[in-house]
């Protein structure tokens, strides 16, 4: 944009002069008191009596993480460290180890998995990055500890959260039963834009599975 065009789009606004009444601030104070008084009298208190009354949080509230177990009760995590890579707060520390010979279907697993719940910003990126749905966020919001090290959740503690929440209908938050954001509402993923050109005669183009490129119409342009 050129300088003249910039100037054209800018409207300069002058601060209005304070009159006599405005400079006493009495009308503004009255205005504020009116709002306060309205809330005092309408009999609809917003304050919740917290420990006695548990708050009703929205169903997409993201709380403490859990580390899932697979169907054989082993830790589901494969120690790929995608969560640690995706984490913007860098609160996940994983040490990987080769899986024991009793687990022929697994290559590696986390020898240690430490998540600093104090450092975490509960953005849910770890959950999104996880290729095996091993780390998930739960509805638990009231985590407490007596020291910082109490809130360094290790593998066993995170598996404990799973044991506590596995039958809770609210968990995990991402695929929870409640109403979530539009991204969670897909029954079927929309067709992804073509990564490569596929002839319409291609078997994959006829597939009904979500995410498969159906047709591109670019055939003739090649």
């Amino acid at each position, binding site marked *: 944009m050129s300088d003249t065009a910039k100037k054209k789009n800018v409207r300069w606004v002058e601060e209005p002069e304070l009159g006599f009444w405005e400079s006493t601030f009495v009308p503004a104070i009255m205005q504020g008191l009116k709002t306060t008084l309205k809330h005092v009298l309408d009999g609809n208190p917003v304050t919740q009596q917290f420990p006695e009354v548990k708050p009703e949080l929205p169903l997409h509230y993201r709380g403490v993480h859990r580390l899932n177990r697979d169907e054989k009760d082993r830790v589901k995590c494969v120690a790929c*460290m995608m969560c640690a*890579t995706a984490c913007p707060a860098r609160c996940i520390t994983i040490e*990987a*180890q080769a899986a024991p010979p009793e687990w022929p279907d697994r*290559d590696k697993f986390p020898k240690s998995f430490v998540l600093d719940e104090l450092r975490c910003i509960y953005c849910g990126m770890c959950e999104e990055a996880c290729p095996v749905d091993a780390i998930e966020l739960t509805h638990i919001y009231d985590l407490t500890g007596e020291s910082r090290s109490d809130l360094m959740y290790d593998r066993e503690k995170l598996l404990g959260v799973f044991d506590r929440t596995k039958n809770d209908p609210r968990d995990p938050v991402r695929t929870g039963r409640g109403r979530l954001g539009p991204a969670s509402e897909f029954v079927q993923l929309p067709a992804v834009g073509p990564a490569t050109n596929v002839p319409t005669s291609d078997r*994959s183009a006829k597939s009904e599975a979500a995410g498969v490129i159906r047709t591109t119409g670019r055939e003739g342009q090649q």
Partner: protein
Amino acid sequence: MATVTINGKDVEIGSNERLNCIQAASKAGVEIPAYCWHPALSVVASCRMCLVEVGDKKPDGTVAMQPKLVPGCQTPVKDGTVIIADSQKVKDARKATLEYLLLNHPLDCPTCDQAGECYLQDYSFDYGRGYSRLNEPKNIKPDKDYIGDQITLFTDRCIMCTRCVRFTREVSGSAELQVVSRGSHEEIDIFPGHPVNNPLAGNVVDLCPVGALCSKDFLYQQRVWWLKSTNSVCQGCSTGCSVTVDQNEDRVYRLKPRHNELAQGHFMCDEGRFGWKYTHSEQRLTAPQTRSNGHAAPLSWEDLLVSVRSALQKAASGKQSLAAVLSPWMTVEEAWMLAVFMRSISPQAVLAVGPVRVEGSDQHFPQDLRGNVVEPVKFTIRAEKCPNRAGVQAVVAHFMNDPMPYEELLRLASSGQFSAVYLTGGDPQGWISELQAEAFSDVETVVLQDCLPSPVLQHATHILPSATFVERDGTVVNHRGLAQLIRRAVRGPDGSRPDSRILWELSGRSGLFQAEALRAEIAAAVPALANLTDPAIRTTGVLLGAPQPAAAQTT
């Protein structure tokens, strides 16, 4: 000069250059993807990833293209060769090739160590399809945990490029690996009871373009995208292989060879590859201290350096002389600073090159199964197990026309000729025996600058904990006079300091240690090291003095 046309772009190649299509295209800045082709190995053209259209420009200007696609790795270029690497035909061929390569590939990238530096990932992203059309179950072969002491094989990830097989046959010569079975049942395997334990075995892990061959030492330690690489030089022997030091959060995780024709070529030996472990040893000296009559007194670095200087000055005022042992593990810059410092305290100070550890004789590769060397030699592990004898010798020779042999210095020390000695170590395998250390038992002032404990520690009066090669900046000179830079990759343990910094502050220079400025100073003073200011030192290194005829083993 021959002219080759790649994607409509002309590129000149030298008359002596014998290039294939991939190399010619890379000269023009065009990447032709390839898995099985490697510049240091023979051509098999088995992966079919480098298929290109090739034609000939006739003298009358017409171009005759060959009707079929040809593998670029196997097709030499000559004057008038036309390569088309971006046509739809070529793109479709690459797409189809990748689809075939991925048919039985498990796609376990999250748990694969190669993810992040994997050619299957890169080429699938650049040239492949975004999906698979395979509806049938994949043919999964069992992993082979023991291919060698350092190597594990994830058989299902293999794409049968046979780089590893060719490496063991052509470079190490030991030929442990081969392909067994046929078709989609093909597997890489070893002969029973003959694991890949040759001294160059670790290279097959680097050569593997996918995650099939993995190093047990590095397995699951880090994801590769977390590693930060620093160019450096291996310290294992006087070949001085160019390497990269891969580290994360001040911990070294691996050394990888860096291609440098002047130094070693493409590879490195296992001794060097795994020879950095001492940098994180629990034994590392970390306490700067003085000792008198066996009583150690910890001292701050500032006080210690003052104490060292005054002890040496006091010793220099006596009748006996001063001596310094310049370890061949020092860099040229450090050796120079120590020599200048000792001579500034006492102009008659004796300088000697420290002990050069020699183990056996040079090992040349390839070696056949009887241990005979097969010509041409492609890799050499040298018997001289120190990185910088040539560089330190050049510095000492500048100060003393007749450098004192180390044994002579030991003899003089035990006979009480010296009032103070400055010892530098650095050899992780130990550089001094109990008996030799006795020579310094009666010397009044023994300054020891070393990173690991040694027998001479008990006789030392001043202990300066120093750094290993991954914690220092400097120059090392290999057996054929190639000066290369080592660079600081990690911070050393608390309490230790890089040798360069110790000597910089000891000699009273102001500011921070700067290798570059020091190199200029050395190059101006020592004619034998005048090439140190050549900017090429930052990449391939520079050959000092008259370049010797390049030996066959460095090709």
